[in-house]
Structure formats: C-alpha cells, structure tokens
C-alpha cells in the first residue's frame, strides 16, 4: 500500500470516527431534549390537575346551596323588584322632579362637540373581558346592529360614558 493510499484510508477512518462521534453526541442531545419535554409535560399535567382540583374546591365552597345559606345568614339579598329596573330614558326622566319655584339655576356642565369618528384620539377604556377597547367594542356593536333595533338603556348610557365632554354650555 502506498503512503498516499494509506493516508487516505486513515483520513476516511477519521471522518467516520468523527461522524459517529457527532451522531452519538446528537443522539444524546436529542434524547436529553426529549426527556426535558417529557418532564415539562409531566409538569403541565401536574399543574393542570392541581388547577382543576383548586377550581373544583372553589366551585364546591361556592356552591349554590352554600351561597344560599350564607345569604340567609349573612347578607339577606333579595330578588330585585320591578322599581329597581329602568326600561328606557322616559322612565329615567320620570324619576326627576320639576324645578320648584325659587330653586337655584341648574348647574352648568361642560360639553364638547366631538366628531363621530374621532373617538380614537381619547385613551380607550379596555374591557377586562375581551381586552378590546371598550369604546371601539360599543361602536362595533352599534354598527352591526340594524338601525331600527331597539337599544337598551344601559347600552346607550355606557356608549355615552366612553366620551368625555369638554366644552361648557348652558343646559337651559
């Protein structure tokens, strides 16, 4: 065997050895990642179970019967009566009394003319439920609803609440 051929075969053997070493190293690496994943999964399962356990405990402690018992002993809340609900603005206005003679002039409130589409410039109130801007949500709902549909009073009241009134003007 000539020296060059000998060198070549040694070279091949070295390459093979390196490849095998790399392969083994990679296998170990893969296995260690796999076992990490398995460990993480077991952790997830344990946490999920704990979460469910706590959730169930909460549900049990706050069961309907328990709440009803607390209510009879501690709070005494009762079902809302008809006069605690307002159907529309007319009913709301009906709660007011006419100005008596000699009563002081009504308080002036500040008000600003805000164009309909510039609501975005104000800091948006974020709904804790959806994470969306509250005003945007209300406006969306208003857009999708048919024009003739009757909006509830609470809806109308909260829609107005998202805007800030700035310019002073007399109410009367």
């Amino acid at each position, binding site marked *: 065997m000539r020296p060059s051929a000998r060198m070549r075969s040694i070279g091949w053997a070295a390459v093979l050895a390196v490849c095998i070493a790399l392969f083994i190293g990679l296998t170990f690496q893969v296995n260690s990642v796999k076992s990490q994943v*398995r460990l993480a*999964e*077991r952790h*997830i*399962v344990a946490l*999920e*179970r*704990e979460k*469910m*356990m706590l959730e*169930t405990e909460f*549900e*049990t402690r706050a*069961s*309907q*019967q328990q*709440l*009803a018992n607390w209510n009879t002993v501690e709070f005494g809340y009762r*079902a*809302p*009566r*008809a*006069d605690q*609900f307002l*159907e529309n603005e007319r*009913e709301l206005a009906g709660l007011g009394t006419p100005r008596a003679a000699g009563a002081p002039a009504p308080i002036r409130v500040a008000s600003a003319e805000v164009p309909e589409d510039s609501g975005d410039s104000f800091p948006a109130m974020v709904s804790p439920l959806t994470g969306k801007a509250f005003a945007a949500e209300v406006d969306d709902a208003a857009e999708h609803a048919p024009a003739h549909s009757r909006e509830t009073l609470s809806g109308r009241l909260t829609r107005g609440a998202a805007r800030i009134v700035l310019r002073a003007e007399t109410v009367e």
Partner: protein
Amino acid sequence: MTSLSVSTAISSGRVTLVNVRQRSLLTARLRVLWVVAGFVAVAFAALVRIGFIGLFEDAPASRSLSEALLPPRGEITDRNGVPLARAFPAYALWYNPHALDDGGAPLVNSPAQVARELVRIFPDMNVQVLTERLASGRAGYLRRRLLPEQANRVQAIGEIALEIPQETERFYPQGSMAAHVLGYVGADGHGKVGMEEVLDKRLSDPAHRGEPAALAIDMRVQGALEDELQKGMLATNAVGAAGIVLDVDTGEVLALASLPAFDPNKIDEAGAKNMFNRVTNQVYELGSTFKPLSIAAAMDAGVVTDLAKRYPANRPLEIGGFRIRDSHSLGASLNVPETLIHSSNIVTAQIADQLGGKALKRTMADLGMNERPYIELPARGFPIWPKGEWPRLRTMTVSYGHGIAVTPLHLASAYATLVNGGIWRPTTLHKVEPGHAPRGRRVFKASTSARMNQLLRMIVSYGTGRKADAQGFRVGGKTGSAEKPGVGGYRHHSLISTFASAFPMDRPRYVVVAMLDEPQGTAASSYQRTAAWNAAPIVGKVVPRIGPLLGVMPDDSRDIDLSDVKPLVHGGASE
C-alpha cells in the same frame, strides 16, 4: 512444565534467572489478557443486553400530553358551562399486609404507633379502631379519599404496607343539587339513575370525553327552585316536593327538582331511598290544573264561543250515581273566566260533557298524556290513561284532573303548549342551540292560546293563584289540589297541591310547576292544605329569583291586555 523449569533453574544459575523473568512476564501478560477478556466479555454482554432491550422489550409506558390530560370520564356542565360533574384522579389509602413479603409482621413499626401517626394526619379516625384494624392483618381500604398533601404525609410514615393507589373520583361540586338529573357513578364505573346513565357511553368514550356534555339545566335556576321548594316543603311539613322550569319555545328543561334529594357524592341507604324521581317517574292525579286544558280543548273545538255564557253551579252534578261537587258554593251560575278563577268542578264538567269524551281524549293524547314523558332520563312513569271510549262520567272527571294520572313533567309540557301559541314540543335535558328547536305539533289554535293566556293571568290576578303574583313578572297559572287515592276511595287529608304557571303572560317564555306531596296545614300556610296557600307562594318566590337570570325583567308598566275579559269577572269589573 513447571517441574522442568525448576530443574533447569537449579542446573544453570544465570540463564535460568532470565528464563524465570521472561516466564513470569509472560504469565503476567497472560493474566492481564484474561482480565481484559473478562471485561470485554462483560461489556459485550451488556451491549447485547442493551441491544436486546432496545429491540425487543416494550417501551416504558409513556402517555402523550393530550392523553394524560384527558379526563377519565367526561365532564357534565350546565347550559352556561358550569361544571356539574367532573372526574379527576384521586388517591385512596389501602392497607396491604403482604406488601413486605417476608413472612414476618406486616408493619415495620408497631400497629399502635402507625395508627397514632395516621390519626395525626386524619384527626377524624380513631386510634383504637385503627390499631385493631392494622393488627388484624386484613387487606382493605383504610380511607377512600386522600388529598395530595395527605398522601405525601402518609408516604412519609414509611410503611410499605400503607399503599396509596390512584383511583378515579367522580365529584359533584354542587352537592345534592340536581342530583336526580345527574345521577351518580356506581362502583363499576358506569352511570346510574340520571344523565350519567344516559350519557354513559359518550362520557367514557375516549374520542368524546375530552369535551364536556352540556345539559339544558341552568344551575342558578336549579338552585333557586330547589331552595324555594325546600323551604316550602319544610314550612308545610310535606313529605316531598317537585318542581320544573321549562322553556316554552324549545322544550328545554332549565331546572328539575325532586325533593327530598340525595347526595351523589355519598351514596348510602338514606340517599338510595330518595333516588325516586317525583317529576318524571311518579304519576299523580293533578286535579284542577287540568281545567285550563279542558277549557282550551272546548274553546278549540268551538264548544265555548262566548266567555260570558253562564252555567249553573249551585247544585252538585249527579251522573250515574256519582256526584260532582265544588269545595264550597260558588254562586248560582258562573261564566268561563269565573269557573277558572274559582276553580269550579261542576261547570268544567258541564263544558267537558258538551265537548264529548272523544275530543277531550284526542286533545289529551295530543298533549302526550297517553305515553311516557319525553325526557332522556331513564326513570319515566307511564300515565294512568283510561283506555277505550271515555264514558260521560270519565270525560267529566278527567276534565278536572281526576281519573287520569300523569307526571308533573307531562303537566309542564302541556302548559308550555297551552301558552306558547299551541305547539307541543318534546321536553329535553340536552341543550338546544338557538334555531334548532324541534318543530313539534299543533294542539291548540294560536287564538285559543292567546285567550288562555288572558284567563291564566286572571286566575293569578283575581283568583286562587293570587299568592303567586310576583310583582312585575306577569305570572299566570292555575292551582290544583287533588286528594290522593287510598284504600276505599280518596283520602281527604292527603293532598297533592300543584301550581302550574307561566311567565311573563304578555309573551310567555317559561313554565314553572311546583308540587307538594301531602302538605299539612301549618302556620306558614295559614292552616290550609290547598295549593293556593302552599304551592302558589313557592312559585311567587321562585319567579322573582329566576326571572332576571333568564332575561325577564320585572316591569310594572307591562301586562297582558285583559280589558275585554275583565268585565266578566266580579272582582275585575270593580277594579
């Protein structure tokens, strides 16, 4: 060879010494070789074993994440997703005296010492009993359920004989609430009694048990109904109570209560006695609550065309030696609204007589009174349904709810038909998606239904149902107090008091039926046994609690228009 080398060593001094050195070197090399060969053999054997394990042995059981998170049995929720039944892995404490497997004592420490340690973890256990138990050497449960931290502390005692097997726990967070709807899971792992039995296949199927099964029940409504029924039952010393809340347009059962209930978390003998479902399984003669159905049938058939027409009511109706009488004299004559308001048997029987047995029977059959109630629950009672052609007397008694016995669920379904425009739909415990309600079948004309809504509202406004008139909720309904049949006729002091109602009457959405089994006259019911004094007040308290939850707001400014029927009634005309 050894003898030869020894002999040469003796014969030639120096040469032999070299030989000896070489030979001992050879021996040493040979020994090293042996050791190396031994190591190689061991390493080879280990490699072969590893290869064998890798190739032929089963992999260690590893479950994927989704499998591990899959509940052992599907969850049951109410219509809003609140869990009513869920399964999770739990631990039990099992005593295995043969765990050490050395033929000696089952425990490392003395039984008394182990018992003391256990009582430190579970203070409700008894040291004496536990010591005897551990000393007896019998295998068995020491405790059925352990919390995880308790399991850790038991592990820390260090007794191998105390095993902590993992088991599946079926838990009902709401306790005994809706127990008859849910049922329970038996020791064999299969559902019993309620929806656990009905949905057993789906709840244990790995493909489906991941997502919860939603029922039509609304937990808050169920809670309010059970609470008020329980109070009413205790206040009147009744032996039992039943209640239903039904959506009139879809047939969904929003609440179904049968009291006394049982606790599905703890099935014992006392609980097993109460598993009987009064709403779907027991049939009762429900009495006067049938009158609106009979009047509606007569109206539908064109027998009652004039609500102002007066019928004689001053003397008992004699037919075939049987006398139909009213509880007290209601006047010389009554028109139709007055008949319902004062609940007159005599006039209802006359109207039913004019209608005829054939038509009444057909209407009752259309309302599903001749078959088991439509509900998923396994316990469904078959009505006592008079077969063949109904003779005159039978027609008359059925018209005011005697001689026919149905479940309270039948009644609720019939009232839903009466108020929703006349369409009968099967009742269901499965949640119905909006727009997917069954078509149902028409029993009454829409005009009849509209008229009956007025009359039902009048009964609550001016008649026997006044105690159910929850302010602002426009309740309408009919009382029924029927004597229970006993040996040798009806028992005058054992009543079934029922109030069947709907609200709001200007656009009926929900039917509420409350029933008390053998209520007594107590101070709470003004010493009366009839439904006006015990069942009607329950509805009057339930409706304000459930109305706002179901989207019906109380409103004093709205009511069904009674202006055309009001003048026909004595009390109404004066108002």
